[in-house]
């Protein structure tokens, strides 16, 4: 208090540096405990640690078969659909809503594509485009019920889950498995050639890293020039080094096998795109705002209804992309929807730190969550473990993640105010 009263309203030069110094008082920041750090910037560390422990465990118990390029390449190919559906559901989780229909809608999209391609002979691009548009339409209808009629998303998407499952059975007309022969569709993720050529596999990630580093350095320079607070130099360096090591490490690993899988490239493209949308645009900011406090967002003039409808539309659209990746990998679509896919997708998002209560989490964390779930499935398969064991473990990990989310939220509510 005393600082505040002593601080006279000196009519100093209105530069930001002076303003920053008089408004942002570091001493007002309570000393951050480890717990607070873990709830804030370093929130991903426990998840990362879990992943490392799981990897080490399987590496030892499988006799060194887990952490080899071939298996890891296989693993990321397996999680492409989980992670894509996870990205899809993240968009609505950020609003504090849920979409239970992602797996069902994704499979429906794959069935639409399969029928157009295999039965009606459409070219691959047309089949894929129509499937994606169908997904967008489905999501839009979900969004109408949820945003305008204010029906809880849990119920609307549960109805969608059941309804579209029925629709795809009807479309397949009793056929249990529809084989896809189109080489372009199968080439996405299902064949031995579905890897990026080495120059793209190395070039694209490296380009992304260079752009990212350029971006944060430019931001740092601009902030300094504007007289705003900048990150300490060591933090900047640590950030750059971490990104370079992770990305180039992963690329090296892939290139030691067949290269970067197409499905992984597509997944990262979408995650990158939605990271940019969510953090750098007004639309993304509004999604977080609606998830944080919908009433405040409405009073601030944000069109909450439009945001909700858009999020559900994008969610189902991405789910269809996930479904197409799965169909391409299997080179077939089955009438049977992968029973664990829905919970794995939501689980990956929540394990990665996307709050079920809305407004919190980063899309990058989905990768960690999906890797944890994928590792459990993959590792237990290496150990000749059963589906039963894998599902029980997944259930436990998911419960743990949701519990952590709820406890963190409560702790924040306490330390706030």
């Amino acid at each position, binding site marked *: 208090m005393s600082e505040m009263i002593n601080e006279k309203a000196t009519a100093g030069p209105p530069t930001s540096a002076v303003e920053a110094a008089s408004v942002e008082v570091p001493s007002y920041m309570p000393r951050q405990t480890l717990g607070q750090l873990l709830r804030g910037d370093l929130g991903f560390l426990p998840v990362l640690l879990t992943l490392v422990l799981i990897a080490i465990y399987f590496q030892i118990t499988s006799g060194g078969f887990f952490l080899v390029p071939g298996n890891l390449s296989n693993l990321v190919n397996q999680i492409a659909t989980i992670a894509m559906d996870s990205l899809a559901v993240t968009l609505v989780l950020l609003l504090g809503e849920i979409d239970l229909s992602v797996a069902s809608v994704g499979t429906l999209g794959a069935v639409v594509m399969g029928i157009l391609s295999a039965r009606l002979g459409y070219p691959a691009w047309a089949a894929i485009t129509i499937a994606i548009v169908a997904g967008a339409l489905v999501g839009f209808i979900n969004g109408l019920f949820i945003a305008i009629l204010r029906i809880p998303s849990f119920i609307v998407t549960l109805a969608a889950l059941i309804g579209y499952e029925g629709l795809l059975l009807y479309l397949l007309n009793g056929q249990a498995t529809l084989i896809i022969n189109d080489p372009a569709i199968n080439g996405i993720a299902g064949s031995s050639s579905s890897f990026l050529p080495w120059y793209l596999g190395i070039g694209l990630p490296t380009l992304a890293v260079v752009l990212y580093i350029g971006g944060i350095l430019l931001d740092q320079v601009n902030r300094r020039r504007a007289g705003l607070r900048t990150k300490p130099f060591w933090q900047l360096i640590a950030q750059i080094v971490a990104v370079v090591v992770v990305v180039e490490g992963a690329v090296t690993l892939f290139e030691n096998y067949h290269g970067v899988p197409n499905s992984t490239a597509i997944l990262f493209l979408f995650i990158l795109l939605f990271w940019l949308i969510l953090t750098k645009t*007004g639309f993304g900011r509004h999604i977080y705002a609606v998830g944080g406090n919908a009433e405040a967002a409405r009073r601030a003039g944000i069109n909450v209804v439009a945001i909700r409808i858009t999020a559900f539309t994008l969610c189902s659209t991405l789910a269809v992309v996930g479904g197409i990746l799965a169909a391409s990998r299997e080179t077939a679509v089955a009438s049977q929807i992968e029973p664990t896919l829905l919970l794995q997708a939501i689980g990956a998002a929540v394990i990665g730190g996307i709050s079920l209560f809305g407004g919190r989490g980063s899309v990058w964390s989905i990768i960690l969550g999906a890797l944890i779930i994928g590792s459990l499935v993959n590792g237990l398969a290496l150990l000749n473990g059963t589906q039963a064991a894998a599902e029980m473990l997944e259930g436990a990990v998911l419960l743990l993640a949701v519990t952590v989310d709820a406890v963190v939220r409560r702790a924040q509510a306490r330390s706030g105010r």
Partner: protein
Amino acid sequence: MADNFTSPVAEMQQPYTGEPRLRLKGINKSFGAVRALTDVDFEVYAGEVVGLVGDNGAGKSTLIKAISGVGPPDSGEIFLEGQPVKITGPQVSTHLGIETVYQDLALCDNLDVVANLFLGREERSPIRSLSEIHMEQRTLQVLRSLDVKIPSVRTPVMSLSGGQRQSIAVAKSLLRNAKVVLLDEPTAALGVAQTRQVLHMIRRLRDQGLAVVVISHNLADVFEVVDRVIVLRLGKRVATFDVKSITPERVVSAITGAEFGALMEANGNDTAGGTE
């Protein structure tokens, strides 16, 4: 405490002549058979803090809703800087430069201070991405003008204290170039230090030439910060005081009607029964 705060402006005896920044004339509002406001006049001048006080059910909230557009009045006239205006909804009042800070503050706890200040009116670069640097600069300017202290403008609002959150909510209205700011119970549920922080900020608002209306139950706060007190009782404006010339006891008796009941009857029983 008080001597710390005596600024030249507080001492200045303003005559408040001329056109008020905001003037309401003959406002009536009924909810069914209940007359919530009867022929209420209200005025606030630029560079003035008016305290709007009254017991529960006196019509304070109804009057504020009439101004903020949430509950337009049944009849009556509203003038902003002398021009007659029709406030038919919250958007209209915001457009006119009348900002209301409700008790619940309407902040997104998960977003940082900058994001909250610019919520719904983000500044964008030519490629449609957010201009974070410019928004952060503007945030610092506005918070400095209110003499607000926070750890960082990039902290989520959730981790700020109640007084700081109140300041952020007020700063939000300043960013929209408000002419009139209505504060609904700004010090309710705040600790002593935080209350002082908010009262200090209200003075800064006045010093910037805004017309400020403070609704409060807390007479101590009212007396510390406002220039005039307008008392509502049972839907009528029963008294107006210059805070320098009266005691809190007189205001209390006006609120409860202990003293002015007789006076009003002497003025004539215009509306029978219902008000007394």
